[in-house]
């Protein structure tokens, strides 16, 4: 069995991201070796000019169309665009993504405005979720991002978010709200 062929077939069959462990099980190789196979498959697709490419997302691997084909695809295939988020929702999402886990009061302290509705919107869109309770008076809910967020933003994990400017990091450290 050619592992690369098998890997391509498995990723084709499963549209959802497949975890490294699962691929290791299916390919009968060590988990540590999966990354190399995925990279080799990506190179293989690139060399033969495939319209597909491999993407690490949501803690796994999946096959997607190549970004260079986006314009051509968009002309020919319609895709239902998600409902655009309000600016308030974007702000709350950014705060949760970069400062998770975080409580509503902390979010409001950063934004300096109420954020209840924006939080509801993001919860309904399954972009954020409750990840626990803070050990503080009232045990407020802690919010974090969801696997759906990772997929919609093409991230393997929350740690893959692009870093912010140094000033942002410094200012964020001094504004923690209890």
């Amino acid at each position: 069995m050619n592992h690369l062929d098998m890997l391509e077939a498995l990723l084709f069959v499963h549209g959802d991201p497949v975890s490294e462990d699962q691929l290791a099980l299916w390919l009968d190789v060590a988990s540590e070796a999966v990354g190399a196979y995925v990279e080799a498959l990506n190179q293989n697709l690139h060399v033969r000019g495939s319209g597909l490419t491999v993407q690490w997302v949501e803690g796994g691997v999946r096959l997607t169309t190549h970004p260079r084909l986006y314009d051509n695809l968009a002309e020919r295939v319609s895709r239902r665009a998600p409902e655009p988020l309000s600016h308030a929702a974007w702000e709350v999402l950014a705060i949760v993504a970069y400062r998770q886990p975080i409580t509503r009061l902390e979010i409001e302290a950063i934004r300096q405005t109420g954020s209840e509705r924006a939080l509801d919107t993001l919860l309904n869109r399954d972009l954020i979720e409750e990840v626990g309770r803070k050990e503080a008076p009232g045990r407020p809910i802690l919010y974090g991002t969801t696997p759906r967020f990772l997929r919609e933003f093409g991230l393997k994990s929350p740690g893959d978010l692009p870093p912010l400017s140094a000033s942002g990091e410094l200012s964020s450290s001094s504004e923690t709200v209890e």
Partner: protein
Amino acid sequence: MSERPVAPPEELKVIAERIRRHPEFARELNVSALAQEVAGRWREHSDMLQASEEIPVAAWIVKKKVEGLIRPDDPEPEGPTFDLSLRPEWLEDAVSELRNLEDRALMRWGRVGEPLPRPPAPVKDPSPWKLSWSYPTLRPKPAPIERRIAREPEPLSVHIEMLYQTVQGEGQLRLQQSLMGRPRPEWVARFLAAVHLWHARRVQAEQGVPFGPIDLTPADGGPGS
């Protein structure tokens, strides 16, 4: 403090509405007299429907009175105060980064696939019974209810008439052969029909040996006679 006179009980809702608009009115209301009066009325006129409408209103009025006495000068709770100048600069950067990320992610189209089949979770302290209940495909299935559709049996008179017509039409009928392929209850019905016809002397029955075939012929000699 001079308390206001008791209002007529039929004005309970009016009082409640007035308290809702002017909460300080509850403090001046003689609520105990009001409660005694309406309670007396509920006892005297046992109109349960009217009482069920008035009791919650009266209870609310009493609650407002108590709140007015306990916390007459509580200030209205204030919402959190915000100062937009305290918003951190990195927030706009973070939003911008997220928007860029989304734009880049939208450049790729994924395939809509079926969710991965998840292996069943391991069973703690497994026993055959726990295992069978843990895996749905192995669960004992309830036996399906057996459904039978039965034909309503014809009355014996119908069998008698049908057998007589057959014997008349064919001239001679071997009873055992006429039962071939028919359900067992019909055997009994046909046999009884044959016995009845023989008793009534409408057919003649011949059986050469015990348990041998029974031949039926019309008593009047058949259609040809």
